[in-house]
């Protein structure tokens, strides 16, 4: 029996660099035999593991969908694009535990019947790219020519699953219309399992320790553990592993405690939602509970908003980023995101037009479901949460051209 529950980041410290194959295998043991890997789909379904790329789709069900395709070999696309500005967990995992990611990709390929593996890694994540390339070389006998690494172009949308497939196929990292989704027709027209690298690494632990181990690794009703990226006014920001169900306040404590009183925290990333700090403090980081509360665990971002930064200005900055990151294909995203970014920026800088707040209230509900991908949904959800959490601030900026942070005369950062 294991004394302690193993985690993704157990083993040598991140600073020691990529774990060697010998150390990795010595610490975690061998993977299950190939003939036993077909049964992994049922184990994953029983584990309750949900995807860690942002949407939280059940991993076992996704594997089953690909495994039960009508014909042909499938492809596994390990998604390590990680374009989310506040997240660093995927690049950290790939750089420090490349063999765990490779384990997961190999298991997925055997479980769903894929003869090709694409490691899709953000080109800006240099350490991760180098670690995975080296790790592939170290396991050439296992992987042969099945796997190759593709550098994903920099961009928030590059990691969206149809964009990833599009890039691998045609060197164009813009999302495509669905259907077909990648599980129906993906890389080279074949059924493709697109799975975030953290999700894959977790499958390699579940394959070794069982679905029961994973289910009981969480707190309360939450199953499992997860990587989170903490940012804001804490002494030790960065990536850490938590049991799902851990309250936000405890994450802050683990990062060395908040340095200052503050009002809000961004949960889930630019695709997620603001939450008032007093509401979030005791709230469990548990995807199901968060969904029920109108929040999102997303890709595990916990971004504390520094006390001196205006929430309207911070929201404006995120929306400008989201507008610029649009792949520019769908009108509602191109015009809608630009419009909400501009109106929020005008409010933040004291240059509001008389009806800016009214228009934001109207527009924010008109973004969801209006693009080929969910990029506009993400921006709309973030704006909706901002209007709720910083409602009084938005109103003060509109009606009194005043900001309690006194940032009005300065252009938003």
């Amino acid at each position: 029996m294991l004394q302690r529950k193993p985690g993704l980041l157990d083993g040598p410290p991140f600073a020691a660099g990529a774990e060697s194959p010998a150390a990795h295998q010595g610490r975690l043991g061998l993977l299950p035999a190939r003939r036993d890997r077909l049964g992994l789909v049922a184990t994953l379904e029983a584990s309750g593991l949900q995807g860690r790329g942002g949407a939280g789709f059940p991993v076992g069900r996704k594997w089953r969908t690909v495994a039960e395709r009508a014909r042909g070999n499938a492809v596994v696309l390990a998604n390590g694009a990680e374009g989310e500005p506040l997240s660093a967990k995927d690049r950290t995992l790939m750089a420090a535990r490349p063999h765990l990611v490779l384990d997961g990709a190999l298991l997925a390929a055997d479980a769903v019947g894929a003869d090709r593996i694409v490691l899709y890694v953000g080109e800006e994540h240099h350490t991760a790219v180098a670690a995975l390339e080296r790790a592939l070389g170290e396991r050439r006998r296992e992987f042969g020519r099945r796997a190759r690494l593709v550098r994903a172009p920099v961009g928030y949308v590059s990691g969206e699953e149809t964009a990833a497939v599009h890039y691998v196929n045609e060197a164009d990292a813009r999302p495509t219309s669905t259907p077909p989704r990648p599980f129906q027709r993906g890389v080279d027209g074949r059924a493709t399992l697109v799975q975030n690298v953290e999700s894959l690494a977790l499958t390699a632990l579940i394959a070794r320790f069982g679905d029961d181990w994973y289910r009981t690794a969480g707190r309360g009703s939450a199953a499992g553990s997860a990587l989170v990226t903490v940012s804001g006014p804490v002494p030790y920001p960065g990536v850490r592993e938590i049991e799902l169900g851990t309250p936000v306040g405890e994450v802050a404590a683990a990062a060395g405690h908040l340095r200052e009183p503050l009002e809000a925290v961004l949960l889930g990333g630019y695709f997620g939602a603001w939450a008032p700090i007093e509401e979030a403090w005791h709230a469990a980081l548990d995807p199901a509970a968060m969904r029920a509360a109108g929040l999102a665990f997303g890709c595990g971002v916990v971004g504390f908003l520094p006390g001196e930064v205006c929430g309207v200005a911070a929201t404006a900055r995120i929306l400008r980023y989201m507008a610029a990151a649009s792949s520019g294909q769908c009108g509602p995203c191109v015009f809608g995101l630009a419009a909400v970014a501009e109106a929020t920026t005008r409010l933040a800088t004291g240059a509001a037009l008389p009806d800016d707040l009214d228009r934001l209230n109207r527009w924010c509900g008109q973004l969801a479901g209006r693009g080929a991908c969910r990029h506009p949904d993400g921006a709309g959800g973030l704006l909706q949460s901002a209007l709720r959490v910083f409602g009084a601030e938005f109103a003060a900026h509109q009606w009194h051209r005043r900001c309690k942070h006194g940032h009005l005369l300065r252009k938003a950062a």
Partner: protein
Amino acid sequence: MSEVISVDRIRCDGHGLCAELLPELIDLDDWGYPLLRSGQVPHHLRDHAKRAVAACPVQALRLQTGVQAAGPSRRA
């Protein structure tokens, strides 16, 4: 079998004919792009929906029978 109307957002250029021909189900946003009030097409609007689909200059509007199959989400 109910019918569902949907827009291919990449194809759509905001010509706006669909909202003229099917105002019961389609509004336009501030930039002229369709806002579907409901994707479900009631029986009595079927012919109007077909006309709207045929009128779209970029063939961005689709009418499908039955509910779309559920599948894994877009973001992995």
